[in-house]
């Protein structure tokens, strides 16, 4: 590592948001000791995130990527856009957690600190331009989410979720490290740009060992974004973890996984696009098929949403398969939209959870429209969005990914994706049907709170606004990811 470039306080500017987040998390840990009310901890957490958001917005305008720590960390539009997803994710998650964690008797102050730590890990991942930093970010995120998944210490299901997540996560990390070591051994570097250069100068793009290293990394990233056949952890963990954590996990690690997958593939292994494309294409098809088909047989809504999130990973992957900056932008766009609609859907799921009532079964949604028209209407919006019905944002997300993949010449993939979207409509609309066309079996009371209402309002409004005025988001994406990297 070249340390001669020196280190001055000014040069840390690009990591100010990360520092802010770390400080916030540490403050939360301390605050938890002093303050009894968890709401205060949560509000401070949100405030800290907002400060970090402000920092990111201040840094957004730079046309040139800012690098720091000998090119190990890069701040560009790409990472900034993903940061916005992470901020949104963490703020909304905190909003929907407040009352829920009390109901689950798992309202610990460190819960909020861990959410922020995990988010910091994601932010580092999105900005990593070196495999070492990438690994650190990934582990920071992963270790925090393992604990989050097991937050409900007294519940066997939560324990089991954490256990499975931890073991499989560690297993996949080992694959990732093995991939790094192979890549490092063959290219002599861990810096993404230098890897790309070495691949060219040493002319080893066809070397099977390089490919092996790449495959190992794809396996590890595939684990994080729940690509079949590396998805098996997702349904179990999503079902067992506290629902708010499920919402958080289904968006954050997935987005971070896509961020690093996109950056590693495009920036380090751009020369090997033919190879990684043909690895990813079957993965995408299997993923869409697995997610859409198995979801049909689910009766637990969290599990159904887990399979739905697997299917969505398949659609998002299409943007990366397209192999163009536009394709990557469409994936980022999809992730942002997915974050909004998925957290919205989970928020409704959370509202049904009360003391002594699980509210996770599809049957619990029977006739919800009669007793709770607003909540049902919101769920309808989220389900329509997840299905991809215009004029919701979900349609815009899918539409742009499909357009990009068609432009890249993979029309058949778009056709396959549309077929699976149609299949997926069955299980999303089944929820709607249960709510609107069945008679309620028992009276369901909702656990609402101001912060929950806020989160629901924000997500629903954003889904409709983006659906009707997609250029609001698309312009931002295009501005963030122009020529890319």
């Amino acid at each position, binding site marked *: 590592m070249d340390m001669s470039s020196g280190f001055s306080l000014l040069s840390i500017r690009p990591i100010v948001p990360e520092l802010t987040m770390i400080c916030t998390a540490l403050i939360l840990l301390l605050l938890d000791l002093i303050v009894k009310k968890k709401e205060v901890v949560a509000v401070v957490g949100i405030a800290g995130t907002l400060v970090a958001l402000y920092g990111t917005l201040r840094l957004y305008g730079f046309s040139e990527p800012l690098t720091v720590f000998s090119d190990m960390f890069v701040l560009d539009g790409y990472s900034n856009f993903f940061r916005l997803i992470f901020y949104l994710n963490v703020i909304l998650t905190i909003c929907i957690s407040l009352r829920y964690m009390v109901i689950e008797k798992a309202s610990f102050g460190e819960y909020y600190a861990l959410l922020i730590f995990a988010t910091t890990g994601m932010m580092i991942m999105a900005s990593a331009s070196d495999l070492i930093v990438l690994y650190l970010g990934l582990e920071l995120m992963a270790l925090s989410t393992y604990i989050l998944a097991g937050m409900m210490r007294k519940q066997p*299901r939560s324990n089991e979720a954490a256990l499975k997540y*931890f073991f499989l996560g560690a297993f996949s990390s080992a694959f990732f*490290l093995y991939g790094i070591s192979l890549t490092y051994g063959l290219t002599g570097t861990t810096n993404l740009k230098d890897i790309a250069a070495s691949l060219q100068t040493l002319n080893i793009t066809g070397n099977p060992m390089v490919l092996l290293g790449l495959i190992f990394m794809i396996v590890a990233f595939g684990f994080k974004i729940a690509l079949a056949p590396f998805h098996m952890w997702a349904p179990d963990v999503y079902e067992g973890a506290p629902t708010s954590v499920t919402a958080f996990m289904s968006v954050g690690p997935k987005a971070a996984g896509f961020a690093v997958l996109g950056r590693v593939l495009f920036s380090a292994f751009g020369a090997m696009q033919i190879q990684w494309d043909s690895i990813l294409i079957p993965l995408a098809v299997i993923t869409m098929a697995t997610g859409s088909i198995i979801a049909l047989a689910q009766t637990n809504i969290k599990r159904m949403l887990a399979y739905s999130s697997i299917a969505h990973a398949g659609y998002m992957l299409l943007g990366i398969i397209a192999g163009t900056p536009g394709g990557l932008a469409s994936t980022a766009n999809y992730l942002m939209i997915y974050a909004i609609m998925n957290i919205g859907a989970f928020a409704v799921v959370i509202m049904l959870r009360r003391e002594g009532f699980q509210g996770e079964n599809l049957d619990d949604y029977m006739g919800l429209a009669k007793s709770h028209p607003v909540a049902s209407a919101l769920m309808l919006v989220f389900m329509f969005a997840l299905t991809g019905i215009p004029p919701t944002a979900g349609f815009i997300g899918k539409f742009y990914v499909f357009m990009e993949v068609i432009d890249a010449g993979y029309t058949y993939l778009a056709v396959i994706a549309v077929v699976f979207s149609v299949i997926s409509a069955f299980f999303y609309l089944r929820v709607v049907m249960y709510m609107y066309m069945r008679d309620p079996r028992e009276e369901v009371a909702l656990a609402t709170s101001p912060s929950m209402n806020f989160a629901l309002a924000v997500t629903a409004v954003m889904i409709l606004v983006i659906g009707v005025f997609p250029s609001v988001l698309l312009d931002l994406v295009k501005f963030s990811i122009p020529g890319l990297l």
Partner: protein
Amino acid sequence: MVPLSWYIILSAVVFSIGVVGFFTRRNLIMIFMSIELMLNSVNISLVAYSHYLQSMRGQVLVFFVIAVAAAEAAIGLAIIIAYYRNNPTIKVDEINLLKG
């Protein structure tokens, strides 16, 4: 002087043992140790490459891996203990409350 390939083969063999151990072992602790084996196999190859390439990056990464593995061990064991408190078993084939 031991050639590089020996280290790499050793690393690959240890990694494979770890992988196979992960899905053949029944005891959570043994599975955990299999993962440690995998991590350390990576450390072997990283150090070997680092020496071969005369570059420090590999060794830096090894330190990070060791540090992270320690943190991972702490969290992993904590999760296992939390699990054990509610379900007194560490046999992996008895852990299937969540499935389908």
